[in-house]
């Protein structure tokens, strides 16, 4: 039994967003009443939308650190559609939407314009869903990385094209049912491809900062935003945002799913600088992938009688591979 007292201990450590016992300097921006609410109420996201939450979390932190100097460029997708249907917008920040596939390039333009105006203290964010990021806008993203433009790109990964009705994207996990990977044939749902790990691809560009984050860990998320904000040049943040509609999960389980994705190893939390992994957030309480998958209707076929057990095993293998590759478990509990 340890007798050592952790400095600043409170019952929830940094697992909760805030805590009345903690100084205002260590709690999350999200936990504070004067947070920017960059994305405000009245938006039309589904109940329990992870993407709406992730966007507010990330941008509020940017707002804090930039002293409210931010320009946001948004790709087409749920986040754009549910926030700005005429005649109302939910954004409280200067915000621009152009197209589905060009947000990184538009952001480059915004940034260049700010530079021309001598206003480089404004943080430029480009953001989009997984579809716009890993698929259609990927070329622009890579170009922005390669040029090392001073843009923080944020991908809100809900693992499919949600806005158009849940079709497969390059970020859709194997076996997941989507409208274009239906439950027919011998291997229902999405196929096992090679995957498209954009955080790693971003690292391969050697850009200053790359991190994965989750709405289930707001302090980690904010720390990563802060780290990104401490640097110039192209930076990439990939935030996992469960989507109750697309995943067939209960709205109340959004955070829980985000958490289980991390704890199962399916969604590794890591960060890297200039192409080198500099940190991983360890799994705290490891769970088998089943615990995560079972809460989502897009995976229920894996648990039906007669399901090919290789499919489930394949998903577990992905988690295991992540755990090994990133070293997600503390030595000892392997």
């Amino acid at each position: 039994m340890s007798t050592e007292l952790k400095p600043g201990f409170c019952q929830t450590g940094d697992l909760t967003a805030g805590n009345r016992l903690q100084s205002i300097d260590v709690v999350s921006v999200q936990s504070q009443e004067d947070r920017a609410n960059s994305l405000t109420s009245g938006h039309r996201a589904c109940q329990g939308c992870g993407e709406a939450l992730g966007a507010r979390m990330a941008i509020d932190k940017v707002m804090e650190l930039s002293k409210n100097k931010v320009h946001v460029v948004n790709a087409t997708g749920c986040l754009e559609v549910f926030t700005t249907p005429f005649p109302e917008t939910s954004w409280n920040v200067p915000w621009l939407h152009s197209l589905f596939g060009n947000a990184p390039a538009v952001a480059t333009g915004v940034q260049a314009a700010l530079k021309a105006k001598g206003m480089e203290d404004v943080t430029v964010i480009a953001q989009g869903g997984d579809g716009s990021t890993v698929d259609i806008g990927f070329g622009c993203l890579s170009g922005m990385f390669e040029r090392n433009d001073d843009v923080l790109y944020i991908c809100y990964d809900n693992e499919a094209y949600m806005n158009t009705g849940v079709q497969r994207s390059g970020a859709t996990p194997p076996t997941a049912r989507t409208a274009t990977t239906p439950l027919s044939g011998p291997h229902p749902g999405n196929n096992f491809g090679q995957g498209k790990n954009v955080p790693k691809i971003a690292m391969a560009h050697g850009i200053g900062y790359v991190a994965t984050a989750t709405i289930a860990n707001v302090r980690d998320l904010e720390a990563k935003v802060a780290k990104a904000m401490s640097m110039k040049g192209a930076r990439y943040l990939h935030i996992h945002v469960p989507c109750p509609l697309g995943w067939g999960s209960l709205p109340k389980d959004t955070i829980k799913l985000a958490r289980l994705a991390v704890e199962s190893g399916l969604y590794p939390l890591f960060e890297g600088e200039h192409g080198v992994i500099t940190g991983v957030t360890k799994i705290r309480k490891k769970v088998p992938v089943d615990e995560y998958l079972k809460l989502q209707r897009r995976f229920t076929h894996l648990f039906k009688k007669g399901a090919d057990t290789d499919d489930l095993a394949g998903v577990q293998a992905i988690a295991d591979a992540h755990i090994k590759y990133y070293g997600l478990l503390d030595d000892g509990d392997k």
Partner: protein
Amino acid sequence: MALTLPYAITLEVGSSLENKTGDWRTERPIYLDRLPPCNIECPAGENIQAWLGLSQEGKYQEAWEEILHNNPLPAVHGRVCYHPCEDGCNRKQMENPVSIHAIERFLGDEALKNNWTIPKAADTGKSVLVVGAGPGGISAAYHLCKMGHKVTVVDSKPAVGGMLRYGIPSYRLPRDVLDSEVAHIEKMGVTFKFNTRIDNLAASIKDGGYDAAFLAIGAHVGRSVEIPNDGSVKIIEAVKFLSDMETEDKKPELGKKVAVYGGGNTAIDCVRTAVRLGADSVNLIYRRDRKNMPAHDFEVVEALEENVNLNELRTIKEMKDGKLTLDIMELNAEGWPESTGKTETIEADTVLYALGQLVDASLFNDCTGIDVEKDGVTNVNDQFMTGMDGVFAGGDMIPSARTVTTAVGHGKKAARYINAYLKGEAYTPAEKHETASFDKLNTWYYEDEDMREQPVLDLKKRTTTFEEVLGDLDEATAKYEATRCMSCGNCFECDNCYTVCPDNAIIKLGRGNRFEINYDYCKGCGMCVEECPCGSMLMEPEEL
């Protein structure tokens, strides 16, 4: 909308506030306080979660005051209470419970160190007689005094405490702690009269002009058993033995070989006292096995550490030539001991009988209507009143779990009924909130953190002196341990609900002021409720 921007393609920031998404909702989240299991288990009815919460913030005086709403003796309880709260503590289902008693002790000691006091209400002009200066009597006296009544406590013993002093050994409860804590109550205005035995209660009430009486005379008559004895083995009743320990001129002589018969807490106190008195061998003899001993296991452990021999599944068949013949027992299917027919012998100069206590109810001689059982136990109604009007009772003398804390709880509750009785009012206890059971928590959010244990006196001193065995938590550790509390069922302002709402439908009212839900925008997703660590929120069906 003022058209200052290019029509439609450019929009005024924040304008979606016009869109009240609250009507999407079929269920609504609400905030509520649930009753934590620790509070439920506390016989004194302490609001443990609340004072732990204050302790977490370093507000020790407020924490102490919170305890004093229910229990005037935190320094005592922090030492002798069997802390059923900790058995109920939800944290027990994670790693181990919060060391509630140790923090309570810390707070009690802080109060003594700093002479914190509790204000009392204006004089009501009513006076109450309290018989028995044990925990039950002290508690009732304190509460009644605080309510503004004049209270006189009488006790046949020479000093305050009842079993706290004449039962519980000083290595568990140093007498200065007891005395100081009671001194505070005395200072509040309670009158104590010692060496005064009440033999005729009705007369005493009448003579003293009391408006009501509260009795907590305890159970002090040791139960005996007939065992053949050739007189070579000295027999002493446990309660008498322990009581005599407190009286300088009656210090008992035990000899070198001591056996204690019984398996309850009293038996444990006897063996451990015997060890400290210098006995060479101390045998604890119990008819069933260790698992079934009524004593708390932590007490058994402490005794074993102090070199006590445990003779489980044994009864004393006879005593002869300074030896005890022990019948070897086994448990039958129902768990009751039966003789195996085999025996063994051990040596003993003295056997202490720790077989339970009866109540000496003789003070009811001149009373009518009192309902007394065979063993002296006195029945009361749900308002702690005996069959005699204005005479209330509590503690060991009424049917109950015989613990200090139960007695204190009785004293408190009875005081509230007595107060109502004196004022001619009815007292109805506040309705209890639903339980903050473990399943209501989202324990993901609590850091894994083991209990910080109290320091223990080294074994040498434990076996040779009456120094207090368990030590204090220092301030930092006490606060740390308090902070392990998960605040079950009561918002501790972790800001999760506020943070996880994708619709910004929760309004933070500032630290200390909790939160409010903005139902204009709440879509009823339930995330806030799901991610509340402590179960302080609930989804309710929306009235459609």
